[in-house]
């Protein structure tokens, strides 16, 4: 490391810290009562110290002071990788499912709750992964289909007392239909235009849900939704089939687990089919795909609709599990959340998306005590992740290489 480089880093840190102080001061230290510096300084010196420390570590690392850690660590990581790659993916999949299936036997209510939440987002993430990761279309309004699914089941259950299992495909179908309608008029657009149109549609959906008082009861939401029911053997007097409501948390846990397994298998099969290849071709170069005979319009529409179907299914489950839905659960922030799962985990890779969902739902739960700072940290981490590992945690092999566009 050269001296000028060293100097450059520390000067830019210095400028940055002065800059930060100026930015913090109005928000913390200027009040009608007068000007104050102490309260700003109090926050500022912690940040400044943290940044200096990090830069110090960075310089040490560049100078090679951590070689004694990073070299063995790299070797261990390498051997781990070669060891894990010997076991086929399917085995990992089965082990993962088995472990997940055992959770309700050990964990408490709270942990099960978090796990259910996680799995809902896994479904959503995998659905959006089809649209964003495979077909390469930026969708900022994915949550609308989650909302459509949830409201479909909620209304059918409350108004017509239909069972969850009948409504599940209906919800998926309704979400798919909604996607077809939206997609039909927006699939010709590309890139950011598509993003903003999907965002617009999602906002319209939410506002309609919010304002159509006679159907959806507006912001108050729909209550009295039935939990999923099931015929199960009852052994109390002989062996009879009894209808039971899956209200217990550990029972409903298995419902979502089945949905997740179904989604994973379905997405895997889709990805490795002819259609999946067509999607990936569209992602890489739409024009080239079109001239090679891929019907891009219908393929994109199909990607959009099938993604939406999984969202609708997750929505139906969400309604059945909460037994209450309101438009507030389907805001843009949720869309952003699902999108960040897909991107943070690694676009186009199923294990990546699952990991992304775990990281974004489970980790914040662990830091529940810092409730106030949770979203602040979430935003910061999202930016940091993009700065240091833009390809995601577990990138798929194919998308890994595409550095630029």
């Amino acid at each position, binding site marked *: 490391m050269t001296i000028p480089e060293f100097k450059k880093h520390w000067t830019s840190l210095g400028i940055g810290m002065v800059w930060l102080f100026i930015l913090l001061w109005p928000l913390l230290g*200027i009040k009608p009562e007068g000007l104050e510096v102490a309260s700003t300084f109090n926050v500022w010196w912690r940040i400044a110290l943290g940044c200096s420390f990090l830069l110090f570590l960075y310089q040490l690392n560049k100078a090679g002071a951590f070689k004694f850690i990073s070299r063995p660590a790299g070797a261990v990581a390498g051997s781990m990788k070669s060891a894990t790659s010997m076991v086929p993916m399917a085995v990992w999949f089965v082990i993962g499912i088995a472990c997940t299936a055992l959770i309700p036997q050990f964990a408490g209510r709270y942990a099960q709750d978090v796990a259910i939440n996680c799995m809902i987002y896994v479904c959503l993430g995998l659905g959006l992964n089809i649209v964003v990761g495979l077909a390469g279309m930026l969708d900022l309004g994915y949550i609308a289909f989650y909302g459509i699914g949830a409201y479909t089941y909620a209304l059918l259950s409350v108004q017509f007392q239909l069972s969850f299992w009948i409504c599940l495909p209906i919800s998926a179908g309704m979400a798919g239909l909604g996607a077809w309608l939206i997609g039909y008029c927006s699939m010709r657009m590309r890139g950011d235009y598509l993003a903003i149109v999907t965002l*617009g549609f999602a*906002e319209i959906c939410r506002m309609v849900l919010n304002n159509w008082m006679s159907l959806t009861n507006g912001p108050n939401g729909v209550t009295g939704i039935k939990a999923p029911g099931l015929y199960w053997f009852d052994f109390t007097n002989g062996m009879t089939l009894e209808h039971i409501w899956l209200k217990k948390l550990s029972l409903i846990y298995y419902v979502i687990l089945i949905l997740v397994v179904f989604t994973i298998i379905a997405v895997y099969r889709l990805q490795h089919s002819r259609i999946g290849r067509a999607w990936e071709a569209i992602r890489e170069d*739409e024009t080239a795909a079109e001239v090679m005979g891929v019907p891009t319009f219908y393929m994109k529409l199909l990607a959009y609709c099938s993604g939406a179907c999984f969202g609708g299914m997750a929505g139906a489950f969400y309604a059945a599990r909460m037994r209450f839905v309101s438009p507030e659960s389907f805001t843009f922030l949720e869309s952003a959340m699902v999108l960040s799962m897909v991107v943070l985990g690694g676009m186009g890779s199923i294990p990546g998306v699952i990991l992304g969902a775990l990281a974004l739902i489970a980790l914040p739960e662990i830091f529940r005590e810092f409730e106030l700072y949770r979203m602040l940290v979430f935003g910061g981490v999202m930016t940091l992740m993009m700065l240091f590992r*833009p390809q995601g945690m577990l990138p798929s092999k194919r998308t890994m290489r595409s550095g630029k566009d």
Partner: protein
Amino acid sequence: MEYFLQQLINGITLGSVYALIALGYTMVYGIIQLINFAHGEFFAAGGYVGVIFMSYLLSQGAPAWVCLSGSLILAMAYCAMLAVAVEKVAYKPLRNSSRLSVLLSALGMSIFLQNGLMLTQGVYDKAYPTELTQGGFEMGNVMLSYMQLFIVSLTAFLLVALNVLVFKTRIGKAMRSTAQDKVMSALVGINANRTISITFAIGAALAAAAGIMVGLYYGSVRYDMGFVPGIKAFAAAVLGGIGNITGAMIGGFIIGMVEIFAAGYISGEYKDVFAFVILIAVLYFRPSGIMGENVDDTRV
């Protein structure tokens, strides 16, 4: 007729605000093809810093015009600095990576800034001093308040100033050429990074002015007030043809008018829906927007 006139005045007022925010989106998009989600937060931060300085100056006994212009200038400077910082930290290192990562980085910044505002300024509305801009002209039943006059004339001034800056000065020329070809601009001697920073600063300063206007107009600001106007302003930018400055102004006024007239004549609850319906209709029939040139839409 009087009702129509009144709505027209209100529509122009609201449109001014959207136009100012939309300009920031369109300029940033034009130069680095990024939907800057944090832009709505610059707008909110502008509103907050405006009210902070305004109350401070007022409590020090400064006259009204000093309070208004002082807080306006300070808030614009503050947001320009904030935007430059955000750009340097969150966008500049990602210049060469995929557009989705920059977009997510912007989203992260938006959430971060919004919550930062909430943590430092509290969850509740912060009231603007109301005594500065009371009264107005009355013509029959049509009311033109001084506030509206202030908002519209300030917007007009800023728009003219921006046009001069972009189309008549060296900086403007550098901005336009950097937007068209960054490598080539460097080859003729333009510092692309500095130009991009300047663009962010100008956009954010305009958003800050809009933030103060909204604060004055509605009487208060809130930490999450950036999101909805931000989305609508982006819709306005797309409507006008993204990357096109004149288009963003026109788009902003259209969205503002549509919102006010839809609320006044059709339905107040669905007023936000109409803005999006117009947007989608325009994009469907004329995908490059009203003023849009042939944008290169092949890049995702």
